[in-house]
């Protein structure tokens, strides 16, 4: 009961703010709406029982990427500046495209996924199991992707500094 209420509240928040985030005329507001969407998604991870994903989503997205976004917006725009509206024809085309996509995929989801309705009760992933899975080399264990991500992050840091530094 209470889970359902929380879920539908979060779903409404995500739906409304994700639409507002892409239609707002002020960049800083768009970034704020995006923050609400990301926090709502983090809430959904809690409802699913993935507490670690909730922590990662909050720290990496809400803490890291949003700060980057706000830096970028303030470095390239005046905070009070409005962006000009896009041409009406283009917006209608995109709106049409989105609604066709939503109708198509929504039809598939409603008609074929309906049967699975209840969350199977299983205890959430323990930190110990998570660490062992992340560090193991057997089947269904993820040492290699983990190391690859670390190399990718290093390459990203070097690349970002190379691109953004003053000459």
């Amino acid at each position, binding site marked *: 009961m209470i889970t359902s209420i929380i879920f539908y509240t979060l779903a409404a928040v995500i739906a409304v703010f994700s639409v507002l985030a892409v239609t707002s005329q002020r960049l800083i507001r768009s970034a704020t709406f*995006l923050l609400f969407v990301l926090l709502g998604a983090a809430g959904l991870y809690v409802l699913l029982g993935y507490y670690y994903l909730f922590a990662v989503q909050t720290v990496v997205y809400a803490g890291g990427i949003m700060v980057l976004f706000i830096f970028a917006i303030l470095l390239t725009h005046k905070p009070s500046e409005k962006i000009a509206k896009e041409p009406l024809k283009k917006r209608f085309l995109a709106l049409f495209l989105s609604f066709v996509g939503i109708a198509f995929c929504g039809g598939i989801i409603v008609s074929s996924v309906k049967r699975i309705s209840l969350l199977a009760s299983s205890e959430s992933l323990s930190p110990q199991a998570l660490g062992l899975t992340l560090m193991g080399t057997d089947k269904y264990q993820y040492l290699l992707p983990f190391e690859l991500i670390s190399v990718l992050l290093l390459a990203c840091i070097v690349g970002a500094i190379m691109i953004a530094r003053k000459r």
Partner: protein
Amino acid sequence: MITKIIEFIENFLSSGVPMSAYLIVGLIMFFAGVYGFVTRKNLIMVLISIELILNAADLNFAVFNRYLYPEQTEGFFFTLFAIAVSACEAAVAIAIIINIYRNLNNIDVEKLETLKEPDETYREIIRS
């Protein structure tokens, strides 16, 4: 009449959250992102739309994992790695955007015609 509505809502809420509800949340997020990606001309807005799309995909991975294979962890780890990759992508994209702004004084998609760093004479033409 009103009691019937209340009863209906109570039944609806107490029957648990179906998997399709989660998928539809992801769907709305995804197509909001697609709409923004197609219409907006500001580079930062395009990046915000991409984040929405990626986030919808992440959510779907977690939902499929949790509902269909609750004893396994593939979707969970895929989401974990996807979040890390999207953080990388945002950092590099913002570095590129700031560099473009520094060189061309503009981050409008339609007005970007050169990827190369402009030389001094070209820069003077843009600034004037």
